[in-house]
């Protein structure tokens, strides 16, 4: 398991491997992508990650992606961007078009973990649901509580979360410890709690389509 704090703030240098395909991912997906590479024997893939905390200022993601693609693409046959739209308002999609690379379909990781079609079908009934993933359940403190200032100013909680009713933990793995952490996060936010197992959803499908000649 990689260090979540480093994935949040520093990202991840390119992993060892003889990969012909480089996965350029959000740090919040690093452990999941490495698990998929391991499980499926995708030896043609290497992984590098941008800091997950970029999600707190999505307008910075496209420039960071552009720089990383420029830095790495000469060393690989193909680069694949393991981001969804992630709050960039279509800018990542446009950038991928410009750079001639592909990315994951969907609005965000909650959606592609669940499966974009399934998530979309539920979306209307879940507008007041705050989602956690494995990464966010583990990193609730450093990714959510501290950046939102809730550790220093707990009185802000209802300004951020007043319209939410429930925390939904979308679980990539069966891990009772993470379940407990997610439930504690819900309690801290004063919200109801539910867990829904998703596995890796469309992330697995998207990466599975990347052959060495992707």
């Amino acid at each position: 398991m990689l260090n979540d704090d480093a994935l949040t703030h520093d990202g991840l240098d390119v992993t060892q491997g003889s990969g012909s395909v480089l996965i350029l991912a959000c740090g919040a997906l690093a452990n999941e992508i490495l698990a998929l590479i391991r499980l499926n024997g995708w030896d043609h893939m290497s992984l590098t990650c941008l800091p997950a905390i970029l999600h707190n200022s999505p307008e910075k993601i496209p420039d960071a992606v552009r720089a990383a693609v420029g830095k790495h693409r000469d060393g690989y046959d193909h680069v694949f961007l393991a981001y969804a739209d992630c709050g960039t308002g279509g800018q990542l999609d446009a950038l991928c078009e410009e750079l001639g690379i592909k990315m994951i379909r969907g609005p965000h990781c909650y959606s592609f973990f669940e499966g974009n079609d399934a998530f979309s079908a539920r979306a209307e009934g879940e507008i007041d649901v705050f989602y956690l993933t494995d990464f966010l359940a583990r990193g609730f403190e450093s990714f959510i509580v501290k950046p939102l200032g809730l550790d220093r100013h707990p009185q802000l909680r209802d300004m951020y979360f007043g319209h939410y009713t429930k925390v939904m933990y979308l679980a990539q793995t069966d891990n009772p410890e993470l379940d407990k952490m997610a439930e504690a996060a819900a309690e801290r936010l004063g919200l109801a709690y539910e867990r829904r197992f998703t596995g890796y959803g469309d992330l697995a499908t998207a990466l599975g389509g990347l052959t060495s000649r992707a």
Partner: protein
Amino acid sequence: MSDQEEDIILSELNDEELVQQMHDDLYDGLAEEIEEGVNILLERGWQPYNVLTDALVGGMTIVGVDFRDGILFVPEVLLAANAMKTGMAILKPLLAETGAPRMGKMVIGTVKGDIHDIGKNLVSMMMEGAGFEVVDIGINNAVEAYLEALEKEEPDILGMSALLTTTMPYMKVVIDTLVEKGIRDDYTVLVGGAPLNEEFGKAIGADSYCRDAAVAVETAKEYMASKHNQLAAH
């Protein structure tokens, strides 16, 4: 705040020092101090509108600039906004009584499917601070809710907000409906929210995309001035 600053007694400051101190207190999100400062200025005979513009809006403008420049972050802006809200609560009824200048009227709401309202609330507050009458219709608004508010309130400006990539296209549904009904040009449509950009604003047929509350206020003022000039020319 330093120990030295904690000893400051607001009532002992002259007007200029007090306004400066209130800017600092807003910056630090000190609601009680802002409440006290507002009351002191009113007791000294200040017009409510001047308290609002000089002490509160002036202070929040500094907060807005430092947020834009990456010096302040969202939690600090929210604390400052809370402090300003405390001051506004005292001033609002007085402003109504004293007939303060009215810049125009705005209906504002977050679009259908979206419950996020921090940005919208900041815009509402800053617009009120700038002398606009603001009717906030809240979160998760379907097109019917916007239409009802527009008909009832007859505003100059419609503001729409969205935080999610998945909900921002709904702004176009609202604008297209206004076009269908032949009332699009009756309003200036301003849009904002984290995933939006200028290109999106143009593509959906809004008049302007506003990247933050301060820009929203300036843009609204420009449109009102231009509207005024057009009326004067006829």
